[in-house]
C-alpha cells in the first residue's frame, strides 16, 4: 500500500514536472511589468500571461455528496488604455455556491520598484444574474496601462451535470493555460474539445482519495454512498491535465455563423455516476441512450404519441388528402395556429394542454405537435435533434444532452426527404430558418435508433425580373417591371414586406433605398396564404441612370438592379463563408431608345463560374435596332464556401460588380 502511494506520488510529481508550470501567486516578474507590447502580437491590448484552473470534487458529509471545487489563478497584463476593461472581473457561480477565497492584486512599476495594490473586500460586489447564477464583480484598483493583475480564487459549488467550459482562447493572446480536472472514479464524464484544434499537451494520471465519514443513515437522492460500518472509504481519482502555450488571439470574421465554434474550449459533461456496488445513474453516454431517454420522456417521446382528441377533425381532414399533400396541410395548420415564444429547446416547455389552449409554445412544443400530427396522418416522420447556430456546431463524437437545443421534423415520402420547422410564420413547407441550419442533425427512428445526418440546406429560391422600359428624351427611364420571387426567396420577400408594415411602408422603404426611383404603381400577389410565389408589379420612373456629355449619352444597363459592390472586402479569410440559401436570379431588361440616338458601344458578354460548380453568372447586352436587351443570370449552388476558394470567390464577385458597372455608350444623331 505504502509502495503504491509512493509510485502514485512520483507519478503525480512527474506530471507536475512534465506539464504544470508553477507560477506563484503574487510573485510578479519585473520584465512582465516593464513590457509595453506583447512579444508575438504587438497590437494586443492585453494578454493572459498565465491561467490555471483546477476542478476537483470534495465529499461533503452534510450533503452526503460531492461538491465541486474550483481553484483559479489568472495573471493578466494590460498593455494600453483599451486593455483596461480586462481589469474588470466577473466570476459567475452557482446560486448555492460560495467562495472560500478571492484575492486579487494590481502591480505597477513605480520608479523602478514593484508596487502592489490589494483589491479590498469592500470593493467586491455580488449580483444575481438569474434564478440559478450569481456573479462576483469587481474593478481592480490602481490599474493603468502597463499594470499586471494577479487573481486567485477558490469556489465551492454543488456538483451539476456539466462543468462550465474552460476557455483556452480569448480575444487577447494567452501565453500559458492549464486546466486540471480531477474526478472521483464514481463519476464518468464525456469530454469534448471545441473550436480550432490547439496544440495542447494532455496528461492522464490518477491518485487516491478518502471519504472519511461515509456513514449516513439517510441515503437520499443520487448522492447516496453505500453505508459502510468503517469510517473510511478509499476511492481513486482520475486527473487530467491540459496545457496550451502561446495561444493566439481569436479574431472576428464576417459571414461566420458563430465565432464560438472556433474558440477553443474544453467541455466536461457527466455521463453516469456509479458508486461502489451501487446502482448506476445514467446521464448520457451514446446518442442512442439520449434518444431512449428522450423518447421515454413526458416532455418529448410521450408528446409525439399523445392522443389529442380535439385535433381529430384536423387529422380526419388531412386523411382525405393524398399522402404527400398531407404534409403542407398539417404543416400550415401548425405554423398558422401556434405561436413561437422565442424560446429554443428540443423538449416541451408549456406542454400540449397549454399549447392547444394558449396557442403559444417553444420550439419543442410546436415542432413535437407537428411530428405528432404528421405521424397520426400516417406519414413516415422522425424528430431531428439539432444545435442552433448560436449554440455551436454539434460535436457528434461526444454525445450529450446539453449540446441539443432544437428539434425539427424529417418526413420521408415517395423517395424524398423533407425537413419541416413550424416556428416561423413566413417559411414555406420544406424550408428551414437559418438558426436551424448548422451542418449536423440526429434523427431518431421508430426503433429509437439514432442516425447522424448531414442537413443539406433545403433553402432554394428563385428571383426573376422582367423589365420593359424606355429612355426618354430628358434621359429618364420609364417603364414596368414584373418581379417574381419563388420558394425561399418568396419567404424572404414576405418577411421584408411584412416587417416594413404593409404596402405604404414597403413602397417607402423601396423609395428610400433608391432615391432616384419614383413609383407610380405597385401591386403584389401571393403575400398572404401559402403560395410559393410572390409577384410584384411596378410602374416606375427613374432618374440618374444616364448622363450626357457632348454628343454622347452613357447608360447604366442594370438600372436599379445593379450590384454596385460586394461584401468580400478582406484579402484573406480563415473560416468558411456560409449562405442561408442557394438559388438563381434572372434579369431580362429591355430599354427602348429614343429615335435620335444610336448605339456607339455595348459591354461585352461574359460568362464566369466558380470552381467545383459552386456558382456562375452570365451577362450580356445586345441591341436590336433601337431596343437594348440586358440579360443577367446568377446562380449559387453552394451554401458553404471553403476558405480555400476565398480568393476565387472574391475575384468572381469583383468581376461581377465590375462588369455590371460598364456603360452603354450612345451617340446622338
Amino acid at each position, binding site marked *: 500500500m505504502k509502495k503504491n502511494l509512493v509510485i502514485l506520488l512520483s507519478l503525480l510529481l512527474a506530471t507536475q514536472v512534465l506539464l504544470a508550470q508553477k507560477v506563484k501567486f503574487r510573485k510578479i516578474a519585473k520584465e512582465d511589468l516593464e513590457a509595453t507590447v506583447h512579444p508575438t502580437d504587438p*497590437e494586443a491590448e492585453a494578454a493572459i500571461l498565465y491561467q490555471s484552473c483546477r476542478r476537483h470534487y470534495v465529499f461533503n458529509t452534510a450533503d452526503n455528496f460531492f461538491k465541486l471545487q474550483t481553484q483559479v489563478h489568472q495573471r493578466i497584463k494590460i498593455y*494600453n*488604455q*483599451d486593455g*483596461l*476593461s480586462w*481589469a*474588470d472581473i*466577473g466570476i459567475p457561480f452557482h446560486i448555492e455556491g460560495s467562495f472560500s477565497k478571492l484575492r486579487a492584486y494590481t502591480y505597477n512599476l513605480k520608479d523602478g520598484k514593484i508596487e502592489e*495594490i490589494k483589491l479590498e473586500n469592500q*470593493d467586491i*460586489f455580488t*449580483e*444575481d*444574474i*438569474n434564478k440559478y447564477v450569481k456573479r462576483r*464583480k469587481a*474593478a481592480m*484598483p*490602481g*490599474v*493603468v*496601462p502597463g499594470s499586471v493583475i494577479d487573481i486567485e480564487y477558490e469556489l465551492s459549488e454543488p456538483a451539476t451535470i456539466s462543468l462550465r467550459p474552460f476557455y483556452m482562447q480569448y480575444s487577447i493572446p494567452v501565453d500559458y493555460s492549464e486546466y486540471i480536472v480531477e474526478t472521483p472514479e464514481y463519476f464518468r464524464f464525456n469530454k469534448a474539445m471545441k473550436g480550432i484544434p490547439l496544440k495542447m499537451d494532455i496528461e492522464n494520471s490518477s491518485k487516491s482519495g478518502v471519504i472519511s465519514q461515509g456513514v449516513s443513515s439517510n441515503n437520499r437522492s443520487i448522492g447516496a454512498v453505500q453505508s459502510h460500518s468503517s469510517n473510511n472509504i478509499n476511492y481513486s481519482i482520475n486527473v487530467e491535465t491540459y496545457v496550451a502555450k502561446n495561444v493566439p488571439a481569436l*479574431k472576428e470574421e464576417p459571414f461566420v455563423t458563430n465565432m464560438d465554434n472556433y474558440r477553443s474550449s474544453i467541455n466536461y459533461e457527466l455521463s453516469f455516476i456509479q458508486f461502489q456496488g451501487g446502482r448506476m445513474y445514467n446521464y448520457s453516454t451514446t446518442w442512442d441512450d439520449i434518444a431512449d431517454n428522450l423518447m421515454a420522456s413526458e416532455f418529448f417521446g410521450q408528446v409525439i404519441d399523445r392522443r389529442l382528441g380535439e385535433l381529430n377533425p384536423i387529422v380526419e381532414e388531412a386523411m382525405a388528402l393524398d399522402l404527400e399533400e398531407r404534409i403542407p396541410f398539417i404543416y400550415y395548420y401548425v405554423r398558422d395556429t401556434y*405561436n413561437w*415564444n422565442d424560446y429554443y429547446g428540443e423538449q416541451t416547455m408549456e406542454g400540449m394542454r397549454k399549447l392547444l389552449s*394558449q*396557442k*403559444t409554445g417553444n420550439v419543442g412544443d410546436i415542432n413535437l405537435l407537428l411530428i405528432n400530427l404528421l405521424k397520426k396522418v400516417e406519414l413516415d416522420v422522425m424528430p431531428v435533434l439539432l444545435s442552433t447556430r448560436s449554440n455551436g456546431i454539434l460535436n457528434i463524437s461526444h454525445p450529450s444532452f446539453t449540446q441539443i437545443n432544437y428539434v425539427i421534423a424529417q418526413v420521408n415520402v415517395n423517395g424524398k426527404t423533407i425537413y419541416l420547422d413550424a416556428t416561423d410564420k413566413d417559411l414555406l413547407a420544406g424550408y428551414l430558418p437559418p438558426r436551424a441550419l448548422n451542418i449536423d442533425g440526429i434523427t431518431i427512428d421508430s426503433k429509437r435508433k439514432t442516425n447522424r445526418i448531414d442537413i443539406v440546406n433545403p433553402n432554394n429560391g428563385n428571383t426573376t425580373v422582367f423589365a420593359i422600359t424606355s429612355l426618354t428624351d430628358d434621359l429618364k427611364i420609364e417603364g414596368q417591371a414584373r418581379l417574381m420571387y419563388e420558394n425561399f426567396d418568396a419567404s424572404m420577400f414576405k418577411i421584408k414586406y*411584412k*416587417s416594413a*408594415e404593409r404596402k405604404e411602408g414597403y413602397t417607402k422603404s423601396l*423609395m*428610400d433605398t433608391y*432615391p*432616384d426611383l419614383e413609383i407610380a404603381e405597385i401591386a403584389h400577389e401571393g403575400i398572404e396564404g401559402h403560395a410559393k410565389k410572390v409577384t410584384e408589379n411596378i410602374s416606375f420612373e427613374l432618374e*440618374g441612370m444616364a*448622363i450626357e*456629355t*457632348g454628343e*454622347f449619352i*452613357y447608360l447604366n444597363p442594370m438600372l436599379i438592379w445593379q450590384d*454596385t*459592390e460586394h461584401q468580400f*472586402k*478582406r*484579402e484573406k479569410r480563415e473560416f468558411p463563408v456560409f449562405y442561408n440559401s442557394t438559388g438563381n436570379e434572372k434579369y431580362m431588361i429591355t430599354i427602348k431608345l429614343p429615335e435620335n440616338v444610336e448605339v*456607339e*458601344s455595348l*459591354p461585352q458578354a461574359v460568362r464566369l463560374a466558380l470552381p467545383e460548380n459552386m456558382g456562375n453568372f452570365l451577362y450580356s447586352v445586345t441591341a436590336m435596332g433601337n431596343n437594348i436587351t440586358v440579360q443577367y443570370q446568377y446562380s449559387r449552388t453552394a451554401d458553404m464556401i471553403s476558405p480555400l476558394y476565398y480568393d476565387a470567390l*472574391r*475575384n468572381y464577385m*469583383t468581376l461581377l*460588380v*465590375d462588369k455590371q*458597372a*460598364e*456603360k*452603354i*455608350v450612345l451617340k446622338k444623331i
Partner: protein
Amino acid sequence: MQPKRNQPLLITWLFFLMCSNVAAQNFAVSAIPEKLLKSANSVVRQAALHVEINEKHVMEVSRTWTITVLNKSANGHLDTYEVYSNAEKITHFSAVVFDANGKEIKKFKKSDFQDISVVNQGTVFSDYRAQFLNYTPIRYPYTMQFKVVTRSINTAFIPSWNPISYYHQSLEHSHYFLQYPASWQLSTTEHQLEKYGVIKTEENGQYMLQLSAVPALINEYGSPDPEHFLPSAHCSLNHYSLQNVSGQADNWQQFGSWYYQHMLSGRELLPEQTLSEMKALEASFPDSVERDYQVYRYMQAKTRYVNVAIGIGGWKPLAVADVDRLSYGDCKALSFYTMALLEAAGLPATYTIVYAGKSMKSIDTTQVSVQGNHVIVSVPLPDTTIWLETTNPHLPFGYLGSFTDNRSVLSLREGKTYIDHTPAYNTAENLQSSSSIVSLDENGDLQANIRLRNMGSQFENRYNLERYRTEEKEDYYRKFWSHLNAVRFDSIQHTTDRKTAAFDENIALTAQAYGTISGSRMFIIPNVFNRLDNVPPRYPERKLPLQIKRGFTDIDTIHIQLPEGYVLEALPEETLLESPFGTYRTQLIQSNPNTLMFERYLQIRDGFHEASAYSQYQQFRREIARKDQTPFIINKP
C-alpha cells in the same frame, strides 16, 4: 392664503371618476376612431399616471396603461417593465390581455413577472433591477392593460408626463395627476400643451393634465428633439429628498449649497503624495492653460471609467482619496477628483452637471431641482473657460464633442452655483479637409495617397480609428470606401493632436478597376474618397420641422494622373449648388494633358427649418449625391 379644503378633493374625485370610466372602457379594436388608426402600429387606449407625495418624503406612483398592439412591430410599445431599487420598490404589478373584441383572455399577477438586473456590463455596479413580463401574442391585434404601483423614498425626481412615447402610436386618453403637500411650491415646465389642447387643472397641492385623441406621428428624418413638437410636463418641488437626505431650495444658490454640503463636501482631500505632485506641476508650469493640460493628462493616464452606483453612490461621488487609490470612478468621481487635482495645482474648477447625449438637452433653468445625467469639469480662466470630459482617456484636452456640447449646464463649487453654457461646434470649425494624389493605369486600376484631417465635431467621427488593430482599420476603410474594389493598403498612419483636437489620417492604397472601361472609353468618378451618397428619405407629406444640429464643412482636393495614351473627352463644367442649407461646389481643372485637379467644397449649415422646407433639403442632398458620383470620361483615340 389657506387652501380651500374642498377644491383639492374635487380634483381627486374627478380623477377617480375618469379612472373608473376607464375601467368600463370598451377595448374592442372596432371602438378605435378611424383617424387614430392611420399610420398607427399601436394605440394608447388609456394611460393614467398618479403621483402622490407626502410630507414624510414618500412618493407613491400608480400607473396604468392600456395599449392595443395592431401588428408585430409594436410589441415593444407595451413597456412591459418597471425598474426598481432598494429605494424604489414595486408594490403591485399586474397585466390583463384582451383580444381584438375586447374580451379578457389572460391575466398576470406580480409573481408572473420576471426579475432581472438592469446592468450587465463589467464596468457598472448598481442595485437597480427590473421586473418585466414576457408575453407572446397569439394573434394581432390584441390589447394589454398594465398596472404598477411603486413606493419611493426619493422625491427629488417626480415622474414626468410624456403621453406620446413612440412613433406610429396614437392616443385615445392620457391623464396625469400629481398631489403634494399644499404648503410646498410646485414648479412645472410644459411643452406644447396648448397646441395639443391639453386640459390643465391646478390647485394648491394638486396638478392635473388630460389629453385625448392624438393621431400617430411617423418618424421623419432630421426631426428635432421631441419637446419641439410633442406635449410633455415636468414637475419639481421646492422640498425634496434623495436617499433620505432631504432639502429645500427656492433658487439655484440654495440648491447649490445643499448639494455641495450633502453630496460633495468633506470628500475632496487628496493624499499627501498626489498633492505634492500637483504642487510640483504648479511650480513647473506657470502658464495656466498648459498647467491645466498637464493636470488633465495626469488624470487621464491614471484613471479609468467604472460606474459604481449603489444607493447614494448614484449621486454622491466616491471620495477623492478613494479615486486616487483605486484609479477608477464614474463621471462624478472622476470629475470631482479632477477638480481636486486642479485645485491643488492652483486652478479653481467647478463641478458641472449636464444632460449628456447627442440631443443637446439643457438643464431646465426654471426648475430648481436635481437634474442631469452626467458630470464634467469647467475651469474658468481669465480669458477663457476650459471644459473637461473626465471619463474618456482618449479625448483631447478641452474637447467635449457632441456628448455635451452647446447646452445649459449647472456649475457648482463651494459657495457658488450658476448656470453656464457649454461651447458649440460651429459649421466652419467642424472641418474635414483632404488632399490626395491618385494615378490610374490603362486597366482602370488606381493607386492613391490620401491625407485627411478631421476637426471640431468631425474629430469624434474618426479618432477612435487610431486604436483599432490593423485588420480592423483596413475593414473600416474598405467599408467606408465600399465603392472601391479589391483594396490593398500599403500604409495607414494616424496621429492625434491632443491640444488642438485634430485627427490626421495618412493612407496609401491600391484598388482594382476604379475606372470603368467601355470600349475605347474610361469612366472615372473624380470624387474618389468623400461621397455624400446617403440621400434623406422623401415624405409625401412632411409633418415635422427639420433640424440640422451640427453643421460641417468638407474641403477636398484630388490630383488625378490619367493613364498613358488617354485624353480627356470633355471637361465637365463647374458645379455650384446653393441652398438655405448649405453650399456644394466642385471643379475639375486640367493642369496639363494628363493631370487633372478636382476640388470639392461642401458645407451643410446648422439650423432649424419649417416642415415645408424639407423637400428642398431632400432635393439638395439628392443633387449632391448625384454630383458626387458623376464621372468624367477619357478616351483612347
